[in-house]
């Protein structure tokens, strides 16, 4: 019976209901957009924090703050502090040494590539490809980018770590220079024309999707020779097997001093990326070891800061929509006062009349919310492209949450009109005195 009445009454006052649904849809659009952005980044961050492998970058302490503007590093201390290559085995000597899968040292220097008389300023990076790094516990330990960065693709062959004349050329650079694997390249140290010149064989073309595509990657020893910095490195990327971050790990991120001694022991003896980084800092003096959280440092940093703003804007949108719905409902109740009076006179309980109005409101909320989700999906894509240069993956959880918020909005809006129903006296309205 209630359903039939609901069905009939739903098509009464269609214009007003369309208006109410549109109001809700507008609010839902805004909420979907903000929510989708926030949840997408939040889920990515959560995935990053709960993965079982992490990377840690070790740099000299004074070099910890890069000052990158337009791709050029303006840190004035750059090039003064270095790490020692002979300290590398120390990292494999910490408590969690067995969880360290690999170490990749790096030394980057500016250089000039000369081909057919044209000179091009490029960056040359020295690293390990598959380097023998004898450890006290394991004489045959090998490590390098081939193991750590499995997604690096080489067209041709990998250079030999011992050679000082083989190099990988990044794919974009190779396209600009017009070189292929098997060719040669003349590299001059520094950006002037006065640096020492060396001719290298192009062992392969490297594709990583990162900045290596624009540079030349060479064995570490060769880079050290070119830079005149034997035994020196700029940074070390450590790949470690870790356990997902939890409350203790997050507490420790504020600094191990914040932990009680019991917590410290537990933290130190658990393979959190933070505790492994802490132990690396302990064995390498004057270094800073930081976990590389790609999402948390990029999109996450933006969202964390504006999350409060998102909440406030959403709350304002909900409040506005609820007030609008309230006004519309009030008019409906006044307009249908006679009908309500008749129902009351026939013996309908107040909750049954409420059910009718609330049922209508819920349907309006659902329709508005559904429209809002569709519109919000489109808007979120636009915002994602303009802010993060990538589309936003709208998570399934958005749909029930936005629908629930829409229904709550409409219900909140119908609180006051419902009280008006209770106040109506059948005698008065049927006589037409009100």
């Amino acid at each position: 019976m209630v359903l039939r009445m609901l069905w009939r009454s739903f098509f009464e006052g269609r214009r007003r209901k369309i208006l109410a649904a549109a109001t809700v849809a507008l609010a839902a659009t805004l909420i979907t957009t903000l929510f989708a952005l926030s949840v997408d980044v939040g889920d990515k961050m959560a995935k990053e924090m709960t993965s079982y492998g992490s990377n840690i970058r070790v740099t000299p302490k004074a070099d910890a703050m890069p000052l990158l503007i337009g791709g050029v590093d303006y840190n004035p201390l750059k090039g003064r502090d270095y790490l020692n290559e002979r300290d590398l085995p120390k990292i494999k000597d910490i408590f969690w040494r067995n969880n360290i899968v690999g170490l990749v040292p790096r030394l980057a220097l500016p250089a000039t590539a000369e081909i057919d008389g044209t000179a091009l300023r490029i960056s040359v990076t020295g690293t390990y490809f598959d380097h023998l790094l004898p450890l006290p516990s394991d004489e045959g330990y090998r490590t390098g980018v081939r193991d750590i960065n499995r997604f690096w693709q080489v067209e041709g062959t990998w250079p030999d770590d011992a050679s000082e004349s083989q190099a990988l050329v990044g794919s974009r650079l190779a396209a600009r220079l017009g070189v292929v694997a098997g060719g040669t390249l003349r590299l001059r140290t520094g950006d002037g024309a006065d640096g020492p010149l060396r001719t290298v064989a192009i062992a392969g073309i490297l594709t990583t999707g990162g900045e290596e595509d624009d540079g030349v990657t060479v064995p570490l020893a060769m880079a050290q020779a070119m830079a005149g910095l034997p035994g020196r490195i700029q940074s070390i990327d450590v790949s470690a097997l870790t356990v997902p971050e939890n409350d203790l790990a997050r507490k420790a991120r504020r600094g191990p001093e914040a932990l009680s001694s019991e917590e410290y022991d537990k933290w130190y003896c658990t393979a959190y990326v933070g505790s492994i980084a802490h132990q690396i800092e302990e064995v390498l003096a004057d270094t800073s070891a930081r976990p590389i959280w790609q999402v948390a440092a990029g999109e996450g940093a933006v969202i964390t800061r504006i999350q409060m703003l998102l909440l406030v804007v959403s709350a304002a949108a909900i409040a506005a929509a609820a007030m609008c719905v309230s006004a519309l409902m009030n008019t409906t109740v006044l307009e249908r006062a006679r009908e309500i009076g008749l129902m009351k006179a026939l013996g309908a309980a107040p909750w049954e009349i409420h059910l009718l109005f609330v049922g209508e409101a819920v349907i309006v909320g659902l329709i508005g919310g559904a429209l809002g989700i569709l519109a919000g999906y489109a808007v979120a894509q636009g915002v994602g492209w303009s802010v993060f240069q990538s589309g936003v993956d709208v998570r399934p959880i958005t749909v029930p949450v936005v629908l629930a918020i829409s229904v709550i909005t409409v219900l909140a809006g119908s609180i006051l009109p419902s009280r008006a129903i209770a106040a109506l006296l059948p005698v008065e309205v049927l006589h037409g005195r009100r």
Partner: protein
Amino acid sequence: MAFYIAALAHALVPAVLIIVLWTATLPAPDKPRRSGLARGVCAGALVGALAILLAIARTAETAGNTGLQVAGFVTNAATLMLLALNVRSLRLVEETGTPILARFTPILAAVEIAQGLFAAWNATVNHGLSATDVVNTDLIVNCTAILFGAALLAILALQLAKVARMAGRGPAATALAVVLVLALAVGSGQTMLGLLRLDQIGVTAERITYVARLSVIEPWQVYIDLGLTLLLILVAFRRRFRIGVTEDRIERRLRIARALTQSRWRRGLAGATALLLAILAFQDLYASRPPTLSEAIGMQADGKDEIRIPIERVKDGNLHRFAYISSAGHRVRFFLINRYDEAHIDIGVVFDACMVCGDGGYIQHGDEVICVPCNVRMFRPSIGKSGGCNPIPLPHTVEDGTIVIAASSLEKGARHFTEVVDVEVTDPVTGQKLTSGKAPFQHEAGGRTYFFGDKDSYDKFRADPDAYLRGGKQREHG
């Protein structure tokens, strides 16, 4: 997700049952004014929240929990006493006409709710709601689960209040008595554990045994409580309102309506209870179970006191688990695994235990080897090296394609394992046959444990072990 609902149920179902059944056992005119009960629940929620905040601020979870446990224990004991008074219908009536028993309801509600809330928080505090501060799917799902659990408990309370009245005061009082006795038993164990941890009372073997025995009941408390709820539904069904025969049509329709309402309440409560039981069973029997270790193959030392395992048998890259029973009856697990691939055979031979986490063991999941207690992934090539959470290396030699492990190395590793089985042993002095678990005396010498039938032979052996071990030693050297 189910974790939060189950934690709420474990902590709050006893509280809900005690409050609701208590009000149901009061004689009808003693029915507390609702505001009294509501005030009690609100006060309890407030006190519980305050206690949680205090515990967070001062990192005093144990103190807070114990304090509330003591309060809960005292209240439950008082309730049981008052219930006895109530059953004997000694109605303590005040001058104004309301009985004192009804006055007790808000206090009971406040204490139960406060204790239940704190227990629920305590059970979930180390289980992060989400991995990051940014709103994400996990966070929303977990918060929804908490809200859903709370709503389910509230519905359960409402329905139980109705159904308990239908079942009658007698059955409700019986159920309440059982729930209270159970809560008192569990509460006393918890209180004692708290006092022990706070150093308020001394540690004795009896007290530890008491706590350990009672902690066995604890996980079952909520199931017993919910079982009682189902029994109450059954009683209510047997005492259901019967329509009977009547000529009066109006009367008949009224009666049908009444029977229908009753059956709706009963079915509703049965549904809510069944749903809660299903979620609890899912969480306790399935979702929270630690991964099980693969079967260990039993191994025995050969004539040369060695265990030989051909490499051919273990080179496939899977984790091959074996077990050896030591002289003292310890079940020593060890496993062999190829650290690289079939082309590069390098077998890691290690105990199935870790210096940091104990003998929880390791499992293989796809290509990864995982430490069960701490969830750390092992770097495969490092298995066989000590340090971190790596399995403890087991000394061994390789002889033409066979891994040779000396029984003595396994004996030495027995201290890492807690699992003990009874073995038949011989008293080295008297030659008497004994069962290791029942031998009254034991002594460790040269990495082996020896068992003795009486104090006399024990003392003799301790005075000069070599005199009795020469036979064994000669065999080892031979």
